[in-house]
């Protein structure tokens, strides 16, 4: 026996442009009150609040207050894909879904939105954009070109994802799981991973070449050191993080150079 899923949605009511814009802007601040107890729960309530004002009776009615209280409780997901939850939950509240059903759905949505977002953005899009920009840097591009390239490329994906999430969540309501099967979300991390691996190969030697500047004569030795160092860091993974190791090694270099 399986439990009954969310019911099929009717066509989505139109959300006023002003409300949609307010929600979109607030989504940029969804983690503003992030804490270890409710995580981004308060942010979910904060982002949905403009839509909840459309509930019968407005902001002073019990329906508004109950919905806002319910939606401001614990929630955890990827901050960009939380827009899917904001849209879907706003739709469910305005459709008058039963509170128990909304709460169960809300709980089930946390993990998948976190996992998909982490794979797609933190482990995919962000490192890809970073590496592609380092390749542009290494190819000798101007300072402004490198910075603009990174910000435009990254934020095209970032803002697009937030906007898509809000739209999709609102259109599908409690049936939003089917939208998470979107090929971009399913296959995207893998494809971006391949591109990022390509960008890694191009970026590391080129960036290294530009940063090293006058030390270019040492390039061969540096490349061998990088291969050995990367191997060591991979072997040490889950015991020590690379940035901590860098901190210790650089501190030792400074002490050696200054004291000797």
């Amino acid at each position, binding site marked *: 026996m399986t439990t009954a899923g969310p019911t099929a949605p009717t066509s989505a009511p139109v959300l006023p442009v002003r409300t949609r814009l307010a929600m979109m802007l607030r989504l*940029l*601040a969804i*983690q*503003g*009150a*992030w*804490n*270890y107890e*409710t995580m981004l729960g*308060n942010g979910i309530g*904060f982002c949905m*609040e403009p839509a909840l004002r459309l509930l019968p009776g407005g*902001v002073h009615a019990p329906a*508004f207050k109950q919905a*806002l209280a319910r939606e*401001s409780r614990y929630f955890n997901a990827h*901050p960009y894909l939380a827009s899917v939850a904001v849209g879907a939950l706003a739709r469910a509240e305005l459709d008058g879904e039963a509170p128990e059903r909304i709460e169960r759905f809300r709980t089930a949505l946390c993990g998948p939105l976190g996992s998909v977002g982490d794979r797609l953005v933190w*482990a995919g899009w962000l490192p890809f954009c*970073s*590496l592609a*920009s*380092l390749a542009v*840097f290494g190819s000798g591009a101007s*300072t402004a070109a490198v*910075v603009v390239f990174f910000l435009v490329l*990254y*934020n095209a994906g970032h803002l697009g994802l937030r906007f898509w999430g809000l739209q999709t969540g609102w259109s599908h309501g409690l049936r939003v799981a089917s939208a998470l099967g979107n090929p971009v979300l399913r296959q995207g*991390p*893998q494809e971006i991973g*391949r591109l*990022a*691996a*390509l960008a*890694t*190969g191009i970026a*590391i*030697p*080129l960036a*290294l*070449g*530009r*940063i090293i500047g006058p*030390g270019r004569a040492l390039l061969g030795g*540096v490349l061998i*050191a*990088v291969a050995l*160092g*990367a*191997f060591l860091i*991979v072997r040490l993974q889950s015991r020590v*993080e*690379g*940035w901590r190791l*860098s*901190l210790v090694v*650089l501190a030792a270099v*400074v002490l*050696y*150079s*200054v004291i000797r």
Partner: protein
Amino acid sequence: MIVLDLIPLALLGGLLGLDVVSFPQAMISRPLVAATLAGALIGNAASGLLVGAALELIALETLPFGASRYPEWGSASVVGGAIFASHPDHPPGSMVLAMLAALATTWIGGWTMVKLRRRNAVWAAARRPALDAGARGAVVSLQLLGMTADFARGAVLTAIAYLVLAPIANACVHLWTIDARVSRAIVVAIAASVAGGAAWKLFHSTPGARWFFVGGLAGGLFLLFAR
């Protein structure tokens, strides 16, 4: 000079510290951007970019997964970028010292983020009855308070770190004894090692990614030595 630079750098550090998590997470806090902006404030954006690129290689390893604790690169990159940019002739050791200052600040920054998250929980607990009653004022004010505190956190962190670390870096530059080329090579080797390790962790399980990496590396090395 350090004191004159302090206020604009602190404001920039506050803004970029805010971007890391709270608002708007547009990644202006990534070292590549943040250190360049700090360099531009000092009057030498290109130097900021140089140290920003080295820091970006290291930052590839620390991606902000879930609720885990991670270093705060926004304010830290401002400190590192400003210290390096304030030595426009790039004397020996200046990049090592700027990197070390940034890494030390990123460590403290990660700790301050944890403290702020705990403080946000205290503020939320104080508003619990109002939040449970669905008071919109409580929801909105908690959000605004958290963001304001995060901005202040980043600004204070940047100001203190720059005030303490910039004079130390200046003093160390005068005492530096390692050859300039070797100093720079050490930074590059460390940063690229971390980036290589990070990329392996992220992409080695993606089917076909190894071949894409090998192809890219061949192209990258060709371009490097062909110039």
